[in-house]
């Protein structure tokens, strides 16, 4: 507990440094308190935009605070003293918070102001919708692709990335290398959570008709099986050991940058990091391979978004909306997303020439634009559901339980939550 409060204090201090006192409190302008979750470079980019907004008009004054702790937002909402506007780093809690009434539905604002929701990618729109109401506006979007080390693939005699899961398995087998009985190169890093690649097997985690969770869905099962097979083939102790020696993610010692992973599934933000920290690395990205038996799954994939929302009990929801509208307009969105290395969730922003300057973004944008992109289902118990899945997958990968058993456990644990909700 001591640690938590120390972090909170640290974040608050960080936040107050990030504020810009030179503008003053803004006199008699309507003051909007905005807690955003971006830190470091993201915080700088956000402060720049907030400044620009504050200078652009004289009615509203936005007071930004970098505040990475989403629990603190929740506490503030419960305590009845929330900010007027806040951001969440992903949508996993949106349904749960919306269900509890902690977020203001934005549909009235969208309608009266003629805000163009249609411009958002359908999957991004879906991510901020719960029970047919919109609770947030996406500002950035993420998707995952297959990163592959061109040199290592070539060495192994492959001249292009794998297209199907069947090929992927073959590649993985050939690319993995051992030295003195110890794993030194992993063909494919199998730790990425299967919900990121289950679309490749037409897998799903929720049946909206029957209102049941479906961890035993054949597609999802197959995606877990893929990771289990890789773990079991190399042995968990070997993979643990390889992992343990990994350098910091995205740094020059990143396991993909140093060739410890020949292939890995990762998000678009890794590409700018690699360009900065591992410029010599010869790599490329490709759509996540799909199961040959599900040709429909070609180019299917997973997206998530970060979002802005108005907490329940906000003093100035109208002014907060105005700033939100300004910030999510195409130009500002593009400016912010390029700065933080995220994809823009707006269709009209996709072909903005500025993204040509970000490495590999053309590929990510084209992939994200596929109709087959999906977010996770909007369910109020999603955090718990994913937690349970992670836990069981860890046990399955380590051979502590069988695939079937582990996923049954997930169902047993989560389905009662659905039943309780439906009551």
């Amino acid at each position: 507990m001591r640690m938590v409060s120390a972090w909170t204090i640290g974040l608050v201090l960080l936040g107050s440094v990030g504020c810009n006192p030179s503008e003053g409190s803004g006199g008699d302008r309507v003051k909007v308190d905005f807690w955003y979750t971006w830190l470091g470079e993201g915080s700088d980019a956000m402060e720049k935009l907030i400044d620009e907004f504050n200078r652009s008009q004289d009615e509203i004054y936005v007071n930004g605070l970098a505040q990475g702790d989403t629990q603190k937002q929740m506490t503030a909402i419960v305590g009845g003293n929330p900010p007027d506007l806040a951001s969440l780093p992903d949508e996993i809690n949106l349904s749960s918070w919306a269900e509890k009434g902690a977020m203001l539905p934005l549909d009235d604002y969208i309608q009266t102001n003629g805000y163009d929701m249609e411009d958002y990618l359908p999957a991004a729109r879906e991510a901020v919708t719960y029970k047919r109401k919109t609770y947030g506006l996406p500002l950035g979007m993420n998707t995952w692709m297959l990163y592959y080390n061109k040199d290592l693939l070539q060495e192994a005699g492959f001249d292009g990335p794998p297209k199907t899961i069947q090929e992927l398995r073959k590649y993985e087998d050939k690319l993995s290398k051992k030295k003195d009985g110890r794993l030194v190169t992993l063909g494919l890093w199998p730790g990425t959570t299967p919900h990121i690649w289950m679309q490749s097997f037409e897998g799903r985690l929720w049946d909206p008709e029957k209102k049941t969770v479906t961890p035993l869905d054949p597609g999802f099962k197959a995606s877990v099986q893929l990771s289990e097979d890789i773990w079991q083939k190399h042995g968990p102790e070997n993979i643990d050991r390889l992992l343990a020696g990994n350098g910091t993610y995205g740094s020059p010692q990143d396991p993909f940058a140093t060739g410890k992973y020949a292939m890995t599934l990762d998000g678009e933000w890794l590409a700018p990091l690699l360009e900065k920290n591992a410029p010599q690395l010869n790599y490329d990205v490709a759509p996540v391979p799909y199961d040959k038996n599900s040709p429909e799954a070609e180019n299917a994939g997973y997206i998530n978004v970060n979002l802005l929302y108005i907490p329940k009990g906000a003093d100035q929801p109208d002014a907060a909306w105005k700033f939100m509208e300004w910030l999510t307009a195409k130009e500002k969105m593009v400016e912010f997303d390029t700065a933080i290395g995220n994809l823009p969730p707006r269709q009209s922003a996709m072909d903005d020439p500025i993204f040509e300057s970000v490495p590999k973004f053309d590929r990510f944008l084209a992939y994200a634009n596929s109709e087959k992109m999906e977010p996770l289902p909007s369910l109020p118990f999603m955090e718990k559901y994913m937690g349970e899945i992670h836990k069981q997958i860890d046990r399955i990968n380590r051979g502590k339980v069988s695939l079937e058993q582990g996923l049954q456990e997930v169902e047993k644990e989560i389905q009662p939550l659905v039943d309780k909700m439906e009551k």
Partner: protein
Amino acid sequence: MKKKQQDFWLGLAFASPFITGFLFLTVIPFVQSFYFSFTEYDIFTDAKWVGFDNYIRIFQDENFYKALGNTFFMAFIAVPISLLVSLLIALLLNMKVKGIALYRTVYYLPTVIPGVAGSILWLWIFNPEMGILNTVLRYLHLPDPAWLMDPAFTKPSLIIMGLFGSGGGALIYLAALQGIPKDFYEAASIDGANWWHKFYAIILPALSPVTLFQLIMGLIGAFQIFTESVILTGGALGGPDQSLLFYAVYLYNEAFVNLNMGYASALAWILFVIVMLITVVIFKSSLRWVYYGGE
């Protein structure tokens, strides 16, 4: 009489900051958590009375047993080990050698390092590839486990890490050691006792009150392990195969990640009862093995 009453109110006024804090930060939350343990409460919506549901669910909860098992491991294996090591260090530091003040300082030093900083330091020491520990082990041609990555070694790693801070316990033992009258040793020597007799018949009984104190504090600490687990596992669900899922970590997850305040309160009360029971058992048994001088 009047003066006495005035003193009473004045005293109360001076004590009021503590009383207010104790009341609002300890007593009221204590009572409230008891009430919430019989409800379903997610902070947002009003608490809903569910009777004993939470308590029944706890005893069917696999995570509860896992967390309890891990915590018991730390309490009943790690705590005795650390007591033993503290005692050994204290015995060493009690010797009359040159520069003993320096040694004492050096052994105590790690205790002042905050939990978070210490955990991060050990994260590096335990690194299976680049860490200093495995580098040495490999040099000696000994097996080099993956430490914090291997479910079988996570808790032993934590124990080793805990020994780093044994200086605090050693200091308390040292103070007690220095309080033993020299006559005892002299009398024992005249009777022809060797070092083992002295240790067994003088030092151990003389240190027993301190051992009781350290044992209870150690157990209470073990039941509250949180920082190390969260830092070493990056805040995940208890590390590889949940081998570092401790009671306090599980409680925290339920309360602040899953927002099951009612369930978490019930967990807290069960922990309270367990710690109470263990403390009572130790106190009762201590009548047999703790020796207070003069009795």
